[in-house]
Each structure stands twice: as C-alpha cells, then as structure tokens.
C-alpha cells in the first residue's frame, strides 16, 4: 500500500476519534447487511410458524450453545487485551489476542462439525431430501445456512484481522501509545459476537 508523503504523516498525529467514528459507521453497515436476513427471517417466521418450529427442533442446541460460550470468551479476551495494552503489558496483550484467534478457530471447527452432520443427513440447500419437506422447513434451512454461513465468513475475516493485529503488536506498530488499530479490530470482533448473540436464540432456542 502507498503512504501519503512522510511530511504529512509526521505533521499530523492520528485522529483517534475519527478512526473510531469510521469504524462505528462501518459496523452500522454490517448490522444492516445482516438486517436484510433478519427481515427475511421475520417475514417467513410469520408465514410458516409450524415449519420454523419443526426446523428449529432439528438444530443441535449443544453445538450452538458451545459456540456461544466460545464467542463470549473471545470477546472477553479481546476486551482484556485492549486494557492490557493500555497498561503497557505487551506480552500479556499478545497472549490475549492469541486466545481470541484460537477461540475464533474453535468456533469455525465447531461450525464445520455442525454443518457436516446436517449435510450428512441430507439437509442442505437444494438437496433432494430437503425438497421433500414442507415449504416452511425448506425456507427455514435456507435462511439458516445463509445467515450462519455469512456469519461464519465474518468470523473468518475477524480471525485474519486479529492475526494481523497480533503481527503489528509484535512489530511494535501497535503499542501502548498507539493502539487504535487493536481497538477497532476489537470493535469488529464484538460485532461478530453480537450478531451471533441474535442468531443463537432465534434459530436454536425460541423455535
């Protein structure tokens, strides 16, 4: 990537408020992206309450619950990492960001097994078995795969981002004096967690 001229960089310290404002605006757009799927969920739930109930009963609450725990822990660790860096404990920060990356990985492994089990039972979009089911259940599983799939992509992106921040901390580019990159990555990670906190009850618990 290119840099603006060195003189500009030196003369103008980073605008922290601006950087965080930008991140919050970006997070709005992510909420709205998932908002489209939640609207579809609401409309089709109203149309097919029975099909959604039958579909929801087939989801394994232990997989979902486990992943909820994993994500909540990772949000805790990233919040602790930010505080640790503010207090100048760089090694501890790296450890905590490392925990976050590991948790994200656990989430994806868990999701892999959950999806594999479903696909093994012949339930996946446009599978012959799914086409036999009533319309409500077909719609339910389509939305389920789209929402959790899109969320899974976000977990992956967040994991890569956290790994990249870890590298920046190791190189000293993110340090106790200049930690807005870690804060913004943390905000993104909290959003990924937050969206899951809506997905989990809507798909696994209330149906």
């Amino acid at each position, binding site marked *: *990537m*290119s*840099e*603006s*001229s060195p*003189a*500009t960089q030196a003369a*103008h310290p980073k*605008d922290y*408020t*601006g950087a965080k*404002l*930008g991140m919050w*605006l*970006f997070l*709005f*757009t*992510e909420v*709205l*992206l*998932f*908002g*489209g*799927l939640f*609207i*579809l969920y609401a*409309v*089709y739930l109203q*149309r*097919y309450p029975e*099909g959604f109930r039958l579909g929801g009963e087939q989801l394994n609450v232990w997989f979902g619950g486990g992943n909820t725990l994993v994500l909540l822990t990772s949000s805790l660790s990233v919040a602790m990492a930010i505080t640790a860096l503010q207090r100048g404990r760089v090694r501890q920060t790296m450890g905590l960001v490392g925990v976050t990356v590991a948790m994200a990985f656990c989430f994806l492994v868990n999701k892999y097994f959950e999806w594999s089990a479903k696909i093994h039972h012949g339930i*996946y*979009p*446009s599978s012959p078995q799914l*086409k036999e089911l*009533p*319309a*409500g259940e*077909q*719609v339910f599983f*389509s*939305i389920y*795969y*789209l929402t959790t799939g*899109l969320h899974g992509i976000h977990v992956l992106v967040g994991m890569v981002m956290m790994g990249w921040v870890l590298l920046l901390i190791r190189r000293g580019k993110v340090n106790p004096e200049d930690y807005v990159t870690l804060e913004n990555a943390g905000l993104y990670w909290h959003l990924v967690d937050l969206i899951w906190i809506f997905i989990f009850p809507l798909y696994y618990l209330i149906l």
Partner: protein
Amino acid sequence: MNQAASVSGQRGFWDASGGRRGIGTWVFSTDHKRIGLLYFYSTLAFFCVGVLLGLALRLELFAPGADLFTPQQYNALFTLHGVVMIFLFIIPGIPAAFGNLVMPIQIGAEDVAFPRLNLLSWWLYAIGAIMALTSLFTAGGAPDTGWTFYVPFSVRTTTNVSLATLAVFIIGFSGILTGLNFLVTIHRLRAPGMTWMRIPLFTWALYATAWVQVLATPVLGITVLLIFAERVIGTGLFDPTRGGDPIMYQHLFWIYSHPAVYIMILPAMGVVTDIIPVFARKPVFGYKAIAISSLAIAGAGSVVWAHHMVTSGMSDTAVMVFSLLTFLVAIPSAIKVFNWVATLYKGSIALDPPLLFALSFIFLFSIGGLTGLVLGAAATDVHVHDTYFVVGHFHFVMFGGTGFAYFAAMHYWLPKIYGRMYSRKAAVWGWALLTFGFIVLYMSMMIVGVEGMPRRYYDYLPKFTFWNQLSTIGSWILVLGLVIMFVNIFRGLLRGEPAGANPWGGASLEWQTSSPPPLENFDHEPEVTHGPYDFRKAGL
C-alpha cells in the same frame, strides 16, 4: 511537501508525484484530487459506453419490426445500458468524482480523513467495473435481466448474472467506503471557523448523500448476495414452489435502490445550489432550509421504496401508505427549487456555461419531479406503470437532473483543477443542442408512454412509429451536443487561457486557493470568517 514549488509553480498538485513515475503517480496516489480525477475519467468513460448503448437501443426502435438486433441482443443491450449508467456512472459520478475533487477544499482540509481508504474505494470501483464488463463476454453471455435483476428471471436465465451481481456487490462496497470517508472528513477535518452553518451547500448535500450511501447500500449488498446464493447453491428463498416469495426480493431491492435515487440526485442538487448564487451574485436564499431539506430528502426518500411495487400485488393499505409517503418527498425537493428561483430573483445574473447547465437542471428536473407525482399516485400509476412514460420520467430525473448537474460541475470546477478555461461560445452551443435534443428525445418517450407503449419491448405497434422516430432523432441531436461539449472542455483544459484562481468570483474556500491547487490544497491553513455565499465580506 515541496512548499516552494507549489507557491511559485503554476501546476500545483500535478507536479507532486509522491516519488512515483508514470501511471503509478495516479493509480497509487492518495491525494484526493488525483483520486477525484481517476473517478472523473472512469465515470466519464462509462458514460460514453452507456450513451453508445442507448443510441443503439434508439436505432433499433427507429422503426417497428426487427431492424438491427435479435430480441436477445436487445435485452442484453438495455440491461447493460442500465447497469453501466446506474452503477458505474450516475451513482459514483458526482459524489465520488466531484466530491473527491472539491469537498476537502471546500471545508479547508488537506485531504479526506482516510486517504488510503479513498484509494481502496477507487480500486474496488475499478475491480467491480472490470468484473461487470467481464460478465458480458464470458460464460452464458451478457446478462439480460434489466438492471434490477428481478427474480425469478434472474435466477433462471443462463446468462452471466452471477458475476454481474458480484460486481454490483463490490461497487456497492466502494460506495460505502466513500460515504464513510466523507462523513468522517466532514465531521473531523473542517478548518478553524468552518461551523456547520458555514459549510458550502455542495458539501452539505454530500453529507446527506453519504448517510444514505452508508445506510442503504448494505441492503443492496445482501440482496445481490441472495441472488448469487440462489443461483449457485439454490437456496430457493424467492422461489414460490419452495416456500419463498419473489415480492420479498422486490422489497429488499427497492429498500436500497429507491434511496439510491437520492444518492444520485442529492449531490446534483448540491452542485446547482453552489453554482446559482455565484452567477446571480447574491447570497443563496434560505441557506438553512436548503441544508436541512437535503437531510429531509435523505430521510423521507428512505421510506418510500414500495411505490415501485404498487402493481406487484401488495395490500391496498401498503399501496396507500407508500403513495402518501412518496408525496412527502416532493416537499423538501420543492423547497430547494423555490430557493434556487428566489436566489436568481433580482440577482445580477451572469449567463456563463455553468449557470446555463444549472438552469437546464432546474427546468428538466422539475418536469421529472412533477411526472414523478403522476407515478407516485397509485391510481395514475396503475395506468402508466411499465410504459415509456416511466422511461421518460426517470431519464428526466436521472439524466436531466444528475447528468446535467455533472456537466455543470464539469464546467464550473474543472478550470480550478486544470487552471485553464474552455471556450465560452462552444460551451453555449453544446449546452443548447444538448438541452434541445434532450427534450425531443425524452418528451417523445413520455407521450408515447401515455399512449400505451410498454417499456423494455423489442418491437412496437405501427401507431407508435412517429413518436419513436422523433425520439431517435432527438438522440442524434443530443449526441451532437455531447460531442461539442466534450471536445470544447478538453481542448480548453489542455490549451485554453489560464483561468486564474477565481474565474467565477465565488466566495467559498475552493476559490481562495490557486488554480490548480497545491498538493495540500492551501499554502496556509485557511481561517474561515464568513459564509460560503457572503460575497461582500469576501470582498468580491
């Protein structure tokens, strides 16, 4: 930066290459003016492609029956014309090109808040555009769904819709990043003394636009992703045989695409609002009303999407509610039109090319807006829905509005960027032919539409021949005007007389720095002491 060079030299930011050579000084530059020019030339190139496609469509429709193309080719042509014009020209046109060129200077900033993100936005735009063009020549051939990608056809057609939807997703992402960047810039980087009530109204319009970009575009993102998923893994969410509902697609699509109309028109209104007071030599009438009406249009325009669907089979209650809400958008729009006219009233008017284009804008946009009310009222919409009346209406709004404002901005601000002036006489000729051709071209469409000719059709009944031929002749006059305008502009910018720092006598900040501006826009950080239209306090 090299302070001495920018003060003494006449070439300003053009000289500051940032240590790179050749094309790298452009495509890797983080200077907002260079990125603005990148956007300007890319949007202009796509505008020309769109014009040629439109011309081809009009040629096919010159006479009833099959003339030049097969029906399949015709469908691909109008889809391309729509996709290119909407996603690659009109939406990024004014905000990304002229917003980038002018907005940071108007508020006294050295650059946008995130210069590298700005460059990334242009790269995403370029990648999306290349993908859109690739989709024409690969796989099943050019998409033939219309720019709206309506289901079920967009799911069933064997043409290359999947790649096109991904391209639209990436271009949308580019728009989100530009909007986000502008919001942070306007909030954080205003020069000392630049209070909210001293911001030039073009920047105010960009601010309102940026909110719509950030809040509406993600919905388009998810919508085109759903089409993609529907085609690739067969999710069936919009397929009635599997429990889905195609009307849901239309809702999601228009939740973005109606607000997108305001992404297109708000910056255009901003351009006109900045131009009129300068050429009437009067402070703009009702500064606050215009600033707030931009936000009101952005707000009201975001809740009217379903008026596109009054014949799609919604409940009567929904139709009435959306019809009423649609009328509400007319109020802030009319506030602006009245304020422009009031600014001109008893002004000391200089009929220079930018003002001529701005006047055409007011005239054509008003016709577009008023015919919009005909479409917004459910009863009349049932009659004219999906006829050529709609095509005429939205060309009046999109081309007569946004297009003419783009040309006005080009005549107004490019001398600032290049430091050279074009020929006034040729600009007037170009403007006159363009406006005359425009009215002949699209007014004929509205008339033939009221007579009952449906839109998107490859062929028509012989009784519609006269108006179609008139329309096609209008397209030739319009293209002649375009050619004269572009040749004049670019000859002037390369070889014209030096324009001087303030050729039009404007009071806003961009006219207080040299033409072309230095790399960081001002030699000294400006201190703002008066409003952008306070010509007396600016000593003009």
